[in-house]
């Protein structure tokens, strides 16, 4: 090849000489540079967290219609489903505290409450969650439940917290004075309302929540949930299998004893039956008169704790240790089954 260059005379040869003697120097210089200064950079794969992460616990659920469901849980997690709980999309709550409960007016407006007095509302289907205007409190204020009744939103929580908002969650007013007793749930039928809480407390109102009166019951165990199917027939459930029924709008409560030692966390009126759920997958059902109760498991072998259940069309969606959607046919309530036989 150099012979070919020679044909072009001295200039080309000089050029070739310069080339052949400078290239090696460049290569040596390059190696020296690479050896001393070049450091390899690792390429890192990106990880997108799923909407529901392994660590997530869910404490509250709300149903807008058969399709739209919201759920809230640990570390500020809010997820929304538009297909009845099959798939979920994460929403940014803007806070990191555990959220305990959520309630919705419609598919656009909802309010979520939780630890540290947190109340967040949305009016755009959850694209943005806004901090509500909540009166300050000197006491620990963990809000445990939010419910909507006649366009009013009600929140209950620790230290006798009961707050009400008439403007779809923007501003809140305290209804009761602070007291060393937590309220865990609240329910309304028309002007009649009931609130339950620690030490077996039951409060009643008959004027839409303006005034509340205590009712004495035989039960001293914390009540976690209360539900009424009309103004007079109601059920309240609580820790260590506590279950109370009333037929007179909550004036008198009948203790149903010996059902189970597991905690109940919620009771609902499920179209034509009472349905209570709780710790270690426990389920209790009874027909309308709430006289005879049957205890079983959500699913055979299931031992997850469940704090809330809603019925979306034909299926139940449950919040708790995890989020679960269960087709009605597979809901094993009432069936006595042995644990752990998951095959």
């Amino acid at each position, binding site marked *: 090849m150099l012979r070919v260059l020679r044909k072009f005379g001295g200039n080309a040869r000089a050029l070739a000489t310069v080339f052949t003697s400078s290239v090696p120097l460049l290569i040596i210089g390059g190696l020296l540079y690479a050896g001393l200064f070049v450091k390899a950079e690792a390429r890192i794969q990106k990880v997108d967290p799923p909407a529901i992460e392994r660590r997530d616990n869910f404490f509250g659920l709300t149903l807008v219609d058969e399709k739209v469901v919201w759920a809230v849980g640990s570390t500020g997690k809010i997820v929304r489903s538009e297909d009845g709980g099959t798939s979920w999309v994460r929403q940014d709550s803007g806070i990191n505290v555990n959220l305990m409960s959520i309630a919705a007016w419609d598919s656009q407006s909802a309010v979520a409450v939780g630890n540290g007095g947190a109340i967040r509302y949305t009016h755009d289907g959850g694209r943005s969650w806004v901090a509500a205007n909540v009166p300050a409190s000197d006491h620990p204020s963990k809000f445990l439940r939010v419910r909507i009744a006649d366009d009013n939103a009600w929140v209950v929580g620790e230290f006798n917290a009961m707050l009400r908002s008439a403007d779809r969650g923007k501003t809140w007013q305290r209804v009761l004075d602070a007291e060393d007793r937590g309220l865990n749930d609240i329910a309304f039928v028309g002007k009649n309302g009931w609130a339950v809480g620690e030490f077996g407390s039951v409060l009643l109102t008959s004027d839409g929540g303006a005034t509340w009166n205590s009712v004495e019951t035989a039960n001293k165990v914390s009540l976690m949930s209360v539900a009424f199917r009309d103004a007079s027939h109601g059920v309240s459930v609580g820790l260590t299998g506590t279950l109370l029924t009333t037929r007179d709008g909550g004036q008198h409560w009948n203790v149903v004893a010996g059902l189970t030692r597991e*905690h109940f966390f919620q009771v609902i009126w499920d179209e034509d039956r009472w349905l209570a759920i709780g710790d270690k997958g426990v389920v209790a059902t009874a027909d309308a008169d709430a006289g005879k109760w049957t205890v079983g498991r959500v699913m055979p072998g299931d031992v997850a704790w469940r704090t809330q259940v809603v019925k979306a069309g034909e299926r139940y969606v449950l919040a708790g240790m995890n989020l679960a959607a269960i087709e009605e046919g597979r809901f094993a309530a009432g069936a006595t089954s042995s644990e752990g036989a998951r095959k």
Partner: protein
Amino acid sequence: MKNETFGRIDHVFAGLIRNRVLVIVAILAMTIVMGVLASRIEVKSVFSDLLPTNHPYVQVNQRFKSTFGGSNMVSIMLEAEKGDIFNVPFLRKVQDVTKGLQLVEGVDTYQIISLASKKLKEVRASTEGVESRPLMWPELPRNDAELAALRESVLNNPLVYGPYVSMDLKATLVTVDFNDGAIDYTKAFNQIMKLVEEAKGEGVQVRVVGEPVLYGWVNFYLHETLMIFVAAVVALVLLLCLITRTAHGTLLPLLAGLISAIWALGAAEIMGFHLDPLVVVVAFLITAQAISNSVQLISRFDDEIERGATSAEAAARASARNLFKPSLLAIVADAGCVLIVALTPIPMLQKISYIGTVWVLTIFVTALTLTPVMLSYCSTRRRVLHPINISPILNAVLNLCSKVVTTRARYAVLGGSLIVFVVSGLYAFNLKVGDANPGSPILWPDSSYNRDASDINRQFQGSDRMFVVVAGDQPGVLREPEVLAHMTRFQKYMEAQPEVGGSISIADILPQVKRVLREGNPMYQEVGQSADENGELTYMFVSGSDPGDMDRYADMEARNGSVTLFFRDHQGETIRTAVARVREYVEQNPVKDAQYLLAGGLVGVLAAVNEVILSGQIEAIALALLVLVVCCTVTYRSTVAGVFFMIPVLLSNTITFSYMAWQGIGMNINTLPVVALGIGLGVDYSFYIVDGIREELHHSHNIERAIVSAILGPGKGVLITAATLITSVVLWSFSSLRLQADMGVLIGLWLFISAFSALFIMPAIVYVFRPEFIVGSKRRPIEQAEATALA
């Protein structure tokens, strides 16, 4: 080379041969001394040797491993074939293994964790408040009611259900950590395997993984490794005998290799190093170099005899004189490349590098000096040992080489090589740093260790651990709700990576205690609202238990705590992603009064090793090439020479790396020695060919004839060396250790490419480009040899 230099070298060798008895006795004496030393060398693996001591992760690991769990963790899984684990016979086995582990040598008895140990507890409310008590210690459940109670406690305890009992309740884990300095892998391995064997059967499967077990397996195969080594040496002897058909052609290369090895191992003992069974293959790399040198000398000697040398002594002198320069260049360049490896701050690599350098340098005595001296004893009459003559085959190959160079085919060879170089160079970027596959790359995927590993990772969150330390600026930081909440979010963030099976920290424990305190209401499964409350929760958890039980998660003064992440595999990609995510998270979410420190546990130290290798690999390759280039430049007084000899080295590097990438062999602590030491391997073949061409040009100006005669002369030596070494190295592929099989193939590939470059590519380049340092120019004409120079 100047004729006078030639004369001087000739003079020296004449002197050596004159005093050949003295020389041989001296070398023999030295060999005996070194042999005694070498016989004392210890063959063992030391895990801490693999760790880059100055790397911050390793320092974090060293500082916290005694409490947060080091890299020597062993996990034993007991799995029920039918039903679940809640029956007395199964649980008794768990208890037996747990108790048995306390007697295993080197075990940190405070770090044995299982259902049957004191460490797994449940926290429950009682009339006196909150008590925490062991799940199944010291007594097994006695009846069905107690079994049911145990099952219930397990199911309700996320610290147990998941991490220590599988989600389907069919398997449970026993983990144990070892004291770093005290561990003898072979003893520990044998004792653990005995426990495993005893526990096996009656419907129970037992699987066991962990670094001590892995290295136990390596030692377990030590015997086989030695057998293969012996087989490889025997194959080498037989092949040399077959090809050379002479006693000296068979024995002298072997003698050179053997004495080099003895001296090197003796030197290693003097330097206080031990031999790692995993790098035995490396010995072959350097022995290959010694044998190559010796074979060249012998082949030249035979040529000199054939050309009618007057005496064996004259022939020995002539071959030593003529091959002195390329041999010395090969030795110095290779030693330089091997020494560069010592720059990698990993003790094992440094030791290998020092041993390797000494080893390569001994070739100067064992091959370059001893071979000619011994050759002088040989007879000038050629006596063949057996009737099989395969030299027609060798000659056919060599003739093919010269045909290729002297015809247009040379352009095809050059073009083809260029394409191969570019393609393999690009493909080589797929080479992975760190382990490229799940399981251990040291063993075959279907080895019982790797099957155990995949079984355990199927049932549990992951057997490989990394801990990240949350280091507070002052005591009590780990009680701050803000810090604890930060830890929870950090864990959640890390768990989004699919290879992270789970994580655990004090921020998982306090919510459990608080839930118990709040009558078991999960709505209160959260950390306390204030530092004081968290202090109380900690106190409740610790009360009634051994001091030190909390240490796994945080120290007494709540200043330093750990977040332990469980990994399903320790592939390089997994570890890099995890480390980058830790950094990213901590950067974007700073926490008050505390820092996150990377990283301990096996995955933590592997991260450090991989980072060192990643940042060091370009450096090592570039500097090794630089050493080579400088050596060649100085020897031939030409920068072109330096670049010229880079060609075969670069080609074998890119092709070998591509092969590794293709076969999924990662660049890790075990493969790096071979890769790094291999950089200078085989370049000597090209030295001999090029020097042969130059030598011929001293006698005539016809380049074509010079190339052909170089191919037929030194080329033959190259062919013999490559053929014998490649064949014997391939024997390693029968090893039960995948690493050794892989490395055997790699070395074989390396030698093949070097031989191919030396015989086909380099002559073609010389022919086409006519580099000045070989063919000379008008200004620097080739000095013609004096007629007397060839005795």
